[in-house]
């Protein structure tokens, strides 16, 4: 649960008592392979899950089967927390890498929210920030050039992984496929490769296998039109 507590502390004001309550939540841990649909559109889940390890995407499919990844979720995030109040899922949640998740029952979470208003506020802030990320992604996919778009998404991932302590520097292991990156950016796989190549050529990133190293963080944030305001961190670490 430490990663969930760390995440909530990074976005809200929790006290010692709240942390004890969070530590007491019963969670059922499960491991999943990459590309597994955890929740599908139309499902009525009775629990929400926290990401303990790995990378997830919320995804939607068009009528003719094209996939758009609408947001990423990293360790500490509770991607389907809105399921606590919206009973029918309106998107899928899919593992993009192998992942470990912790499932928490809705009735338990509801009881906690009723008794501990600061935790309820922290959960509310978490879903509001998820919505802010969706707004940023609409802008990214709809209006930014492919090069900026790619740089932006890398900045966001690195920043979010840093803020929950998953990476110490600007090196992130991102074993996601080029096709998944394309689905997140609305770009063809060929163009994803081209944009990664372009970022490398300009000395902003180095890649080794699935490892992405931001060699020039300020250059990359500039290239990605990346401003951390929408992530609403209390003490931005980067």
């Amino acid at each position, binding site marked *: 649960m430490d990663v969930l507590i760390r995440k909530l502390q990074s976005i809200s004001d929790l006290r010692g008592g709240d942390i004890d309550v969070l530590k007491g939540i019963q969670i059922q841990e499960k491991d999943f392979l990459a590309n597994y649909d955890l929740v599908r559109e139309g499902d009525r889940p009775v629990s929400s899950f926290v990401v303990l390890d790995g990378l997830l995407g919320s995804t939607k499919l068009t009528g003719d089967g094209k996939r758009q990844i609408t947001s990423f979720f990293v360790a500490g995030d509770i991607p389907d927390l809105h399921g606590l109040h919206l009973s029918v899922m309106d998107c899928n949640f899919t593992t993009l890498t192998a992942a470990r998740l912790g499932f928490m029952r809705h009735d338990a979470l509801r009881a906690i929210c009723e008794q501990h208003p600061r935790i309820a506020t922290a959960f509310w802030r978490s879903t509001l920030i998820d919505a802010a990320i969706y707004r940023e992604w609409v802008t990214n996919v709809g209006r930014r050039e492919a090069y900026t778009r790619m740089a932006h998404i890398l900045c966001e991932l690195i920043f979010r992984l840093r803020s929950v302590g998953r990476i110490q520097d600007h090196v992130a292991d991102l074993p996601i496929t080029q096709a998944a990156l394309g689905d997140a950016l609305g770009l063809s796989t060929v*163009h994803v*490769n081209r944009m990664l190549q372009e970022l490398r050529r300009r000395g902003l990133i180095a890649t080794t296998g699935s490892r992405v190293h931001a060699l020039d963080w300020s250059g990359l944030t500039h290239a990605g039109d990346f401003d951390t305001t929408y992530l609403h961190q209390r003490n931005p670490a980067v």
Partner: protein
Amino acid sequence: MARFFFDSGDHDVVTEDEIGIECAGLEEVRRAGFEGLIDLTRDALSEVDGQQVFVEVRNENGERILRLSISLQIKLMR
């Protein structure tokens, strides 16, 4: 599945694909190349008569196996 490399070029730069993409056959290579060309056109085609953008595919042995290109014609009609 084999790996194919999709180099792409516009008016002044050719970008070599060092990563490559796994494709099941020529049909899939062609589709991936075409989708790449559409993105490239949107991104890199500039308003210059005769300008061409292209995607050129190499196989694992470095042999060029496919080229897709699109070029712009601008003609004054009067």
